[in-house]
């Protein structure tokens, strides 16, 4: 899914024009970029939080030549998934896990004709 797909859903569901939807979606991510640029953290309830982390500089090495290269201090963006989204993403997994438990070896293609049958009957 791309930014354009988010725009399309807005057009279809919210009765806004293509142009309005494009500006709205672009503005959302622009606002978030501006906050992070200023070192500000972002918290979107139910979705997640972004924060800017400072990394110290260190003396790195070129693994091929062994040459010492100074790595400058830098900033990175960390994301932590919100509780609601984390649970929603994880829940289909539980269903899949239960289904997988029924398959003896997941590397072997499932052959219904070769299923082990219980000797009870």
């Amino acid at each position, binding site marked *: 899914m791309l930014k354009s797909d988010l725009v399309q859903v807005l057009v279809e569901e919210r009765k806004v024009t293509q142009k309005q939807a494009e500006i*709205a979606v672009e503005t959302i991510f622009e*606002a978030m970029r501006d906050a992070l640029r200023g070192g500000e953290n972002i918290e979107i*309830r139910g979705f997640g939080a972004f924060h800017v982390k400072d990394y110290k500089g260190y003396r790195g090495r070129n693994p091929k030549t062994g040459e010492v290269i100074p790595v400058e201090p830098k900033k990175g963006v960390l994301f932590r998934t919100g509780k609601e989204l984390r649970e929603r993403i994880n829940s289909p997994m539980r269903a899949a896990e239960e289904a997988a438990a029924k398959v003896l070896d997941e590397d072997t293609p499932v052959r219904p004709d070769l299923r082990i049958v219980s000797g009870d009957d």
Partner: protein
Amino acid sequence: MTKADIVERVYEKVGFSKKESAEIVEAVFDNMKEILERGEKIKISGFGNFIVRDKKPRVGRNPQTGEEIEICARRVLTFRPSQVLKNIING
């Protein structure tokens, strides 16, 4: 920054009412949640990629007691900032 600040920006920029702006912002995040819940990834050019990853079960440890516990297979969301975003925050 919270959702309210984002709503304010959309309100200033797009010319919807406050209420409409709030609904639009809500709709975008709701839509993203639905996409990710289905296990699909989202690529936002100039911002970053949200990717759902399957984690295998592994043995973890309670750091306080040292007790070993099985951590179940699960699905997690990761965010990879784009090069553009990385450059912006380091600029």
